[in-house]
C-alpha cells in the first residue's frame, strides 16, 4: 500500500508548490518604493470579483490588483489563506465571510487598517461595519449582506395546487406534506448539510449561537430558541417530507431540474448559483420572502455576507484598503457584483444601484431584489459569530449530514456541537460560560 503514502506526499508537495507560487505573486506586492505601480494580490472565490478587479485596474494604473480564484472558504480557501499568513507570504487582500472574520482575527491573520478605513464608515449600513470591526479595530470593507428567501418552481407549485408560496413555517410544513402526498417522489424542499444555511434559519428565529458578557464567551446553541428551530426541521425530516441531498451537490441540482425538489430556502447570492446550475428550467422559478415564524411580526434570516479584508503582513495596507472600499462602493463595481455575484450591497449608496431593479429572466422576469429589499428592515442585526466558527461549522455540518442520513436527531446534534464548541474555546484558553 505504499502508493497511498506516495499520493499523500504528492498532495503535500502540491500544497507546498501552491504556497511557493503564492509566495512569488505576493512578494512582488511589497515594493511601493520602486517607481512602478503598487501590485496587490487578492484571493477570493466569488464569481464576478475578477471583473470588478479588472474595472479597478483600468482606472487605477498606479495600483494594480491581481485576483486569484481560490476554493471557497470552507472548502479549503480559508485554510490556504491562514497557512499563507503563517508562512509570511499571504496576499494583501482576501475575501473573508463575516462568519469567519472573528476566527481570522483570533488567528492574528488580519491587519488593523482602522486609520485608513474609518473615514469610509458612514458609507455602509451600520451593522455591516460592525462585522468587519472587532474590538474597535477595522480589518477591511464589508461587501454585501445575504438576506434569505424562498426560491421556488412557480410552474410546479401551481401544478401541485400551491397557489401562494408559504409565508409561515406552519404553511411550509403543510405544503411539504401536500406535495409529497400528491407524488411520493416529489419534495417541497431539501434538507442539506450546509452549516451556515442552517445558521440563517437559527438567525431568523433569534436563536443566537454566541454572545459575550464581559470577557467571557457564552455559547447558546442548545438554547430553547435553537431547540425550537431544530425540532421543527427534525419533525419534517422524521416524516420524510424533505429530500436529503447534500447542499450544493450535483444530486440536488439534478433533482431540481427533474422537478422532484420544488424549492430552496437560500441566500440572495444563491440566486445566480441556482440559475447556472439548473439552466434547463430557466423562467420557471420565482422568489418569495422566506417563510416566517410569526406572520404578525415577520423576521428573516441571513446566510453569509463577506468582506474584503487586509491580511497580516501586507506592506501596502493603505492602497489595499483603498481598493477594498472602492470595490464595495463604486457604482460600476457594484453593478457588476449585483449582476454576476448576486450580492445585496452593504454600501448604502448601492441600494439605489440600477442593477437592483433589473428583471431576471431565470426567475420569470421578476425583479428579485425587491423581495430581498423588503426583508432587510426585519433582519436581526445583533447576530454575533464566535471565534471558533471553523470547528463549529465543521461539527454542525457533520451533524446535519448524520441527520439527513437518519443517523442522528437534530436537537441532539445541537447539544453535541454546543459541547464541542465550549471545549474548543476552553482549549484555546478562553473563558466561557454555558458549558
Amino acid at each position, binding site marked *: 500500500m505504499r502508493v*497511498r503514502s506516495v499520493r499523500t506526499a504528492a498532495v503535500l508537495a502540491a500544497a507546498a508548490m501552491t504556497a511557493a507560487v503564492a509566495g512569488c505573486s505576493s512578494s512582488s506586492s511589497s515594493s511601493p518604493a520602486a517607481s512602478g505601480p503598487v501590485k496587490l494580490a487578492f484571493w477570493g472565490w466569488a464569481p464576478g470579483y475578477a471583473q470588478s478587479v479588472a474595472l479597478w485596474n483600468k482606472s487605477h494604473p498606479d495600483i494594480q490588483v491581481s485576483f486569484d480564484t481560490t476554493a471557497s472558504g470552507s472548502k479549503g480557501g480559508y485554510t490556504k489563506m491562514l497557512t499563507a499568513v503563517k508562512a509570511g507570504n499571504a496576499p494583501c487582500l482576501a475575501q473573508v465571510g463575516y462568519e469567519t472574520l472573528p476566527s481570522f482575527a483570533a488567528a492574528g*491573520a488580519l491587519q488593523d487598517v482602522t486609520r485608513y478605513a474609518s473615514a469610509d464608515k458612514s458609507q455602509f449600513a451600520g451593522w455591516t461595519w460592525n462585522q468587519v470591526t472587532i474590538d474597535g479595530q477595522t480589518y477591511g470593507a464589508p461587501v454585501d449582506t445575504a438576506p434569505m428567501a424562498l426560491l421556488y418552481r412557480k410552474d410546479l407549485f401551481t401544478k401541485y395546487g400551491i397557489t401562494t408560496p408559504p409565508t409561515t413555517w406552519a404553511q411550509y410544513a403543510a405544503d411539504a406534506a401536500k406535495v409529497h402526498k400528491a407524488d411520493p417522489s416529489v419534495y417541497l424542499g431539501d434538507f442539506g448539510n450546509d452549516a451556515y444555511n442552517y445558521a440563517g434559519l437559527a438567525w431568523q428565529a433569534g436563536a443566537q449561537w454566541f454572545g459575550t458578557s464581559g470577557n467571557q464567551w457564552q455559547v447558546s446553541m442548545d438554547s430553547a430558541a435553537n431547540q425550537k428551530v431544530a425540532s421543527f426541521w427534525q419533525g419534517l425530516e422524521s416524516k420524510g417530507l424533505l429530500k436529503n441531498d447534500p447542499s450544493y451537490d450535483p444530486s440536488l441540482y439534478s433533482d431540481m431540474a427533474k422537478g422532484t425538489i420544488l424549492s430552496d430556502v437560500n441566500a440572495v447570492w444563491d440566486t445566480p448559483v441556482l440559475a447556472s446550475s439548473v439552466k434547463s428550467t430557466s423562467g420557471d422559478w420565482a422568489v418569495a420572502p422566506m417563510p416566517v415564524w410569526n406572520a404578525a411580526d415577520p423576521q428573516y434570516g441571513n446566510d453569509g455576507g463577506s468582506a474584503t479584508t487586509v491580511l497580516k503582513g501586507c506592506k501596502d495596507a493603505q492602497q489595499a484598503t483603498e481598493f477594498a472600499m472602492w470595490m464595495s462602493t463604486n457604482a460600476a463595481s457594484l453593478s457588476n457584483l449585483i449582476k454576476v455575484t448576486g450580492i445585496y450591497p452593504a454600501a448604502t449608496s448601492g441600494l439605489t444601484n440600477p442593477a437592483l431593479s433589473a428583471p431576471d429572466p431565470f426567475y420569470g422576469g421578476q425583479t428579485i431584489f425587491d423581495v430581498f429589499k423588503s426583508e432587510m428592515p426585519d433582519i436581526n442585526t445583533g447576530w454575533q459569530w464566535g471565534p471558533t466558527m471553523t470547528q463549529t461549522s465543521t461539527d454542525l455540518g457533520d451533524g446535519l449530514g*448524520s441527520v439527513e442520513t437518519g443517523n*442522528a436527531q437534530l436537537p441532539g446534534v445541537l447539544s453535541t456541537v454546543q459541547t464541542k464548541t465550549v471545549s474548543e474555546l476552553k482549549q484555546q484558553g478562553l473563558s466561557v460560560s454555558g458549558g
Partner: protein
Amino acid sequence: MTTATPEPPAAAGPRTRGARTRGPRPAPARAAEPRPGPRAAGQQRRQARTAAAFIAPFAVLFAGMYLAPIGYTVYQSLFRVHHSGLGLSAPTTVFAGLSNYGTALDDPAFRGSLLRVLLIGIVQVPVMLVLALVLALLLDARTTLFKRFFRLAFFLPYALPGVIGAIMWSYLVAPGLSPITAAAHHLGLQLNLTSNALLAPTIGNMLTWGWTGYNMLIIYSALQAIPAELSEAAKMDGCSPLRIAWHIKIPMVRPALVLTTVFSVIGTAQLYNEPAILHNVAPNLSSDYTPIFAAYDQINADNFNAAAAESVILAVLAFALSFGFLKFMQRRGEAL
C-alpha cells in the same frame, strides 16, 4: 504521516536477498589493495567524490523533503498559541512541552479516529492478505487455466487510480443510486451501505477491492522464485497440492507476506482517499473519521500545533506497529 520507509521490509524481500549474493562486491576489492600508495589514495579520493556526487541528489532531497518536514513537525508540536481576553486579537505562541500530545490523546474524537483505523486494519488487512495469498497460490498451481488472464484481471483494480476506484464504489453504495441496495430491496432487505454501522465495512471493501491484486502480485512473484525441484520432490513423496502449498510454498513466501503486511499496516494508518471520496455520498461520515482527517481538521481550525502533535502520534503508532511486527516476525523466523 510519513513513516512509509520501506527499507527494513525490502531487506527481507526475496529480490534483495538474491542481489546481495550476486551483486558486485566493492568492499573486498578495496581490502585486497596491499598498500595505499599515493596513486591509490588519489583514486580512492576520486571514487569517494564520485560516490558523493551520486549520493548527493538523494541526500539533499531526503533531507529537504523528508527529514526537515519531520523535524519541523516535531518542533511545531511543542508549542501552542495562547489567547487572552475574548481571544479576538492576535495570539502569542508559547512553549508547551508535550501538552499538545496530552490534549490530542485526551480528545475522544482523535482517539476514536485512531481506534477506527485500527479496527478497520485488524479486520481488513488479514482478509485482504489471505485472499491475496489464496489467489497467488491458485495462479501458481500447475493446473490453473488462463493464468495470464486471471493475473491481469486480479491486478486491474490496482492499476486504476485509487481515487477513481473510490468514486466508482461511492456510486455503487450511494443511497438512491446503489444497485446493491436496490437488489437487497427486491429481496425484502433494508440495506443502507452508508449508514454509520456499515461505513467501516464499506471502506474495508473498497480497500480490499483496490489492493488485493497488488499484494497478490508480490506474493505471486515470491512463489515464482521457489525452485521447482522442491515441489517436485514433495510430489514424488506423495504430497498433495494442498499440502505442498501449506508445507512448502507458504513458509517459503513468508518474507513476502511480512512485507505486504507491513505495507498494509502503514497504508491503513494513512487511510484518507476512500473515506474522503465516500463523504460526498455519505455526509454522515464525520470530518474526523481517520487520524489524517482529524489532523487536517485541526489545520482548518488554524491549530497547526495540535495538527503536528496528532501527525507525530499517528506516525509513531504506524512505525511502532509495522516495525514491531517486522521485528517480531524476524525473531520468530530465527527461532524456527
